[in-house]
């Protein structure tokens, strides 16, 4: 599973962080950082994170 976040769309709402804290985080400046190839056991959480992104900036491959 590979995660792609369209950083031109991302506005740092941070909703993904609540769904998949193992994968997404906001850094000290409040900007998104993420694990682009997380463990497959986190798939459900990552799908949910993509669902709740207000800008629909998160896509999954594989």
């Amino acid at each position, binding site marked *: 599973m590979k995660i792609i976040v369209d950083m031109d769309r991302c506005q740092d709402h941070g909703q993904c962080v*609540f769904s998949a804290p193992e994968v997404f985080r906001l850094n000290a400046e*409040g900007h998104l950082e993420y694990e682009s190839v997380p463990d497959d056991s986190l798939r*459900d959480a990552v*799908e949910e994170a993509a669902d709740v992104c*207000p800008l*629909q900036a998160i896509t999954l491959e594989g």
Partner: protein
Amino acid sequence: MRRIVVVGASMGGLRAAEQLRAAGFTGQLTVVGDEPYRPYNRPPLSKEVLASEVTHAAVAFRMRSSVEDVDWRLGMPVVSSDLAARWLTLLDGSTLAYDGLVVATGLRPRRLPLPGLEDRRHVVRTLDDATRLRASLAPGVRVVVIGAGFVGCEVAATARRLGAEVTVVCAAAEPLMTPLGPDLGAELRRRHEAEGVRFLLGRTVTAFSTGISSRTAADVVLSDGSAVAADVIIEAVGSTPCVSWLDGNGLDLSDGVLCDADLRVEGRPDIVAVGDVARFPNVRYDDVCRRVEHWSIPTDTARKAARTLLGVDAPPFVPLPSFWSDQYDMRIQSFGVPGLGADDIRVLEGDMTSECAVGYHRDGELVGVVLLGLASAIPRYRKLLMDATPASV
């Protein structure tokens, strides 16, 4: 259950289809929608879609691969239903049978029941609405926004940024009064005024007429007798649940579709409802059934409703509602249910004139938080709300 029909092809309908698959449903899935488009995200309609040429593709929802085989029936509203016989009638007269039904028809904008100036009057609910409105917004155009809820305020901000002359008319004493309270409402009004938006508060519209403010003007006539000349009129006065297709089946449709705490339509094991058409109790707060018009709710309700329909175990449904609003360069974010704590509003942190967190309390207990800016504080306040209104039942 061999065939499930989802009525409504917006966010709630899509999420319901995805969650039915995630919960193990392998039968036939049909999603019926009245708009001609696959599900798309509505928040940009009052902002980006008005400000520049944005296509459906740019606002379409990402879809899970599990729903690639869904049978989409788009541009075709369901007009009636026989829930005892388990079939639906579509606008073209065709019928659709189901074993399980998901009600996801959402809302339509309320219109002012006044005749006149029809070619200048707009609402902002669908992509086609926003596209039509965009074509009439330009620098110097006189825009009158009726209603000062979130849609009204966002559209006012967008139109102003495009250079329009914007007047907002609302019945309440301040914009966003009901959701946010008078103090935060007043602060947001000041920010709009600093951008050049004019507010006419405590007034309602009594007529749409011509030739009052000047001989050639098209006017919005107000309850104080004044008239405001308008090139573009935007009605942002709330929404009505789309439930007429369920008439005649003995359901309580007085405000959306009445559901139990598991989102089952009352007394109907084969029907669930999702999104802002569903009226359900959230036992995180109390046992009162309410509709919730927040962006987070379609996704939350779909997850639970899919499992209820399939008889799959799932945790109790106790969502923490949330939404956001972008106006100019400020972001407002809401968590919990501020409306339940409208009688006891306190600034928890910061200053309303810059960035702040405002708490809404019921019986001394925190039930909602609204943040103006202050993004870094979100996780802290979200946790505070989760702890203050524990999800144990």
